[in-house]
Each structure stands twice: as structure tokens, then as C-alpha cells.
């Protein structure tokens, strides 16, 4: 089914020179990134705090409020976090970590936690790299992004903190410059798309916002 679809889609789209998958986001999340270092100054954990926008939060309440009291109980919230957990596991939990340009593997996070505050859902998620990462010689780069562009994550320098030993750590965030990307890369983008039209992860790091935590 899928391959039939892909075939049909690719054949039709091959009429269009250069195609790229972009939808505009419908969910907006303010993200906070906390990097945890151990005694040796290694990067051992990443703590996400995601605050969902009021509109999407209202949809969550309507969808999951079984008893109709306009609030989500513990069990109702658990259904929300289970649904999201299962779904975002297919998107690497919207998390990408790089050290020295190489992707860092991480364990599947434990159950997510969520609560509502002022009509907004706040979700907590902890990501643990499969091995502690040295931060003395190389900065850690982190991106929170939805490659399907359904969710837009917003974060800036103020959203980043270092827990534990944070001496000499500096944070910065670089956002993508789409004008430049389109001008430079239309060829590469076309190729990447036709290799697999449903896969937008190959777009490359420069299409997403990246936070750099530099403690060197």
C-alpha cells in the first residue's frame, strides 16, 4: 500500500522540478532545555519542559475529558501522555543531540509527565544519552524539532540552562535562514526528496533551530 502510494506520488511529483515537504505548524510549543552534568562535567541528561499553546491545549481537554468536568484527571492525563509518547517515539522524541558533529544515541525516555496550568499543558520529558558525553573538549548541540512540521518549537538563549556544574558554560541558539537555504540548495533538496518523499529528516541540520551549550 505504502509503496504503491509512494510510487504514485513520486511519479506525479516528478513532474514538478524540485519539491520539498513543508506544512505550516498548527501546534506551538515553548521549549525549555536543561542540560545536566555529572561531577566529571560530562553531559548525562537532557530535561525538556514543553509548554503547549492554549488552542491546542483546549483540543486536548476536549478530546480526553471523559467525565466532562473540563479538567483532566490523573488517568485522563496519563492517556494523553501515553498517546503522545507512542506517537513521538516515531520522531525520536523531537530530540537530536550532536557532539563533534556526530549524533548521540539516547535511551527511550520513561513515561512523560504532564499537567495543566492556566489553560496550557506543560509536559516534562527526560532524555538520557546512552553514554555520558564529554563536554570539556566539544560543545553539545541540541535541536528540538518536528520533522513533519506539525509542531513548532520555540526556544532561545534564555530557554537553556545547565544544571550541576555550569561554570564557564555558554549557550547560544541559531535559527535557520530559509532564504539562504533555498538559494543555495535547491538541487540537493530535490534529490533528497526523490530518494524518499515521505522522509524529511534528510533535510539537514541547517533546517532546524540548534542550541549550542559550550563548556569548553
Amino acid at each position, binding site marked *: 500500500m505504502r509503496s504503491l502510494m509512494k510510487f504514485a506520488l513520486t511519479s506525479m511529483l516528478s513532474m*514538478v*522540478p*524540485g*519539491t*520539498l515537504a513543508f506544512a505550516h505548524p*498548527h501546534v506551538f510549543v515553548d521549549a525549555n532545555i536543561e542540560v545536566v552534568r555529572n561531577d566529571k562535567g560530562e553531559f548525562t541528561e537532557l530535561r525538556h519542559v514543553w509548554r503547549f499553546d492554549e*488552542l491546542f491545549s483546549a483540543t486536548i481537554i476536549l478530546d*480526553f475529558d471523559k467525565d466532562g468536568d473540563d479538567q483532566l484527571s490523573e488517568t485522563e492525563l496519563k492517556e494523553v501522555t501515553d*498517546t503522545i509518547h507512542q506517537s513521538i517515539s516515531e520522531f525520536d522524541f523531537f530530540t537530536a543531540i550532536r557532539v563533534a558533529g556526530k549524533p548521540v544515541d539516547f535511551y527511550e525516555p520513561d513515561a512523560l509527565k504532564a499537567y495543566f496550568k492556566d489553560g496550557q499543558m506543560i509536559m516534562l520529558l527526560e532524555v538520557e544519552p546512552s553514554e555520558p558525553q564529554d563536554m570539556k573538549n566539544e560543545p553539545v548541540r541540541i535541536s528540538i524539532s518536528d520533522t513533519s512540521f506539525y509542531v513548532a518549537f520555540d526556544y532561545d538563549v534564555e530557554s537553556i540552562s545547565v544544571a550541576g556544574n555550569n561554570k564557564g558554560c555558554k549557550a547560544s541558539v541559531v535559527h535557520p535562514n530559509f532564504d539562504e537555504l533555498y538559494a543555495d540548495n*535547491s538541487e540537493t533538496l530535490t534529490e533528497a526528496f526523490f530518494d524518499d518523499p515521505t522522509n524529511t529528516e534528510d533535510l539537514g541540520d541547517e533546517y532546524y533551530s540548534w542550541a549550542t551549550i559550550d563548556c569548553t
Partner: protein
Amino acid sequence: MNKSVWFFLGTVLFFWAELGSDVLAQSSLGIGRNEQQIPTGGLFAGFFDWVRIQQTEFHQSIREILISMRKHGAHFWALVGICFLYGVFHAIGPGHGKVVISSYMLANEVAVRRGVMVSMAASFMQGLTAVLAISFFVLALRGSGIKTGDLAYGLEVASYIGVMFVGLWLLRRKLVLKSGDAHHQHHHDHEHQGHGATCDHCGHSHMPEPETLSGKFGLKEAWTAVVAVGLRPCTGALIVLVFCFANGLYLAGIASTFAMSLGTGLAVSGLAILAVTAKNFAVRISGAQDRLGLLNRIIEICGALFIFLIGLILFVAAISNA
């Protein structure tokens, strides 16, 4: 002459580029439906990206206005205005509704005015579907375990099936009935000689009407396309409606949804006019050499085939991602 050919080719290219296709229909969060678009690059990449950025910003503004409305109750017209603009931008980005409507124009219509009417009707139908779906959900489905996304998914699939049928039905008319014209003429001659006027309804049921031959269809047929497209509510409208209804802003929710419809309808009308004009233009300039109307038929058959294929692709994508 040269210029008109380029104009036509440019228009065709634009509609290819406009093809928005729905993969990844299920949203990444597992809650709500993504408006899966596969846009579009090449000549129009920069343009579509600009549209996308505008849409995101409008979405943010709508959010801010709604949140302050919840607190202070003001800003009604600001909301309606922003939603109108959101609708316009939503329509000129890639997506299935306008592609189907424009192809329908290529396959079917010669009159610009009808093109505008069909486009507006389809957009308002989309708004109406969104309002009815969320009202029905709040009144009847709340707490049932069914999600708003499930309801939206059901409507989406129904819409894609509808689009497929519109395409098939148009193809049948263009291919089967048109090639039957000669036969009917012939048959008709015999009727006069042999049976006289006694045979009232034999053959008449599939006898093409004069306006069918000239490419005009009845209101009923246009409605089929309107309903097929309009069954699928836009995700943006659903999100706004849910928030408004949850906060008792009923009028604001409904008004902003129809403001989006108006914006979308106007923008799609523009595309429909472009499609009809380009087709008529191409047919006219080829008129001298093309007495059989071959070009017209080719454009119409391609349009019909295209509608069917869009419906098929979207349908397969939707069910394989369910």
C-alpha cells in the same frame, strides 16, 4: 501567439506545483490531524515558503487575539480580519481543495462566473463542515472516547472518496459519453425514419444535453464537486473553533471560521479564473487548426484524470497512515 503558449504552459506548471498531497496524515503528536502538504519547489519554492511563513505568523496572531479575547472580550473584528487573511494565505499555499477545484474548472467549465461560484461554495462548505463537526462533537461525542481528530479523519476520507468519484464521473462523461455522440446522432436519424415519435425515453436518458456538449454542466454536478471538497474541514479552523467553544466565544468562533472561508474562497476563485482563462485561451488560439476541438478534449480529460488521481493518492495515503 508565442506569448499565449507561454502563458498557458506557465499556468499548467503552476497547478502542478500547487499539488499538495497528504502523506503523514496522522500528526506527529498523535493528537489532532496534520495538514499534510507536499509542496513544492522548483520555480515556486521561495513563494511557497513565504506563504508558509505568513501562515505561521497569522496563526500566532490569531492565538494572541483569542487569548486576549478570553480575558477582555474585545478584538472581535481584529480576529475576523486576521482569519480572513489566514484564509487567503491558506488557499494560495499548496493543498488539495484548490487543486481539485482548479482541475474541475479545466475539465468542465468555460464560464468564469460559475468558476467563482463553485470556488466560493466549496470554501463555505468547508467552513460549515468545521462548525457542524465541532458543534456535533461538543454536544454528542464529548467524553465518548472518540477524538476530534477521529472525526476529522472520517470527514477527510469521505472527502477523498468523493473527489475520486467526481474524477471518475467526469472521466466517464468526457470519454464514454463524448465518443457516444456520433452514435447518438446516427441513432437519432434512424429513429425519425423507423420509430417516429413513439419512443419517448429510449436513448434520451443518456443523450447528451446541448449544454453538456458545450462543456456546461448543471448545478447538481457542480454541487458534487463542492460537497466532495467541502467535506474536509481545515485543521486551523478546527483548532480555533475548539478553543472558542471551550471559552464560550461561540460567535467569535463561527465568524472567524467563515471569515477564513471567505478568504479561501476569494483566493481559490482567483486560481479558478486563471484555470478557465488559460484553458479558453489555449483552445481559442488553437481554434483555426483544431476544428475537432481536440485540444479542448485533451485538457478536459487530463483535468478529470487529475482529479481522480488526486482523490486516489490522498485516499490511499490517508488509509495507509491511519
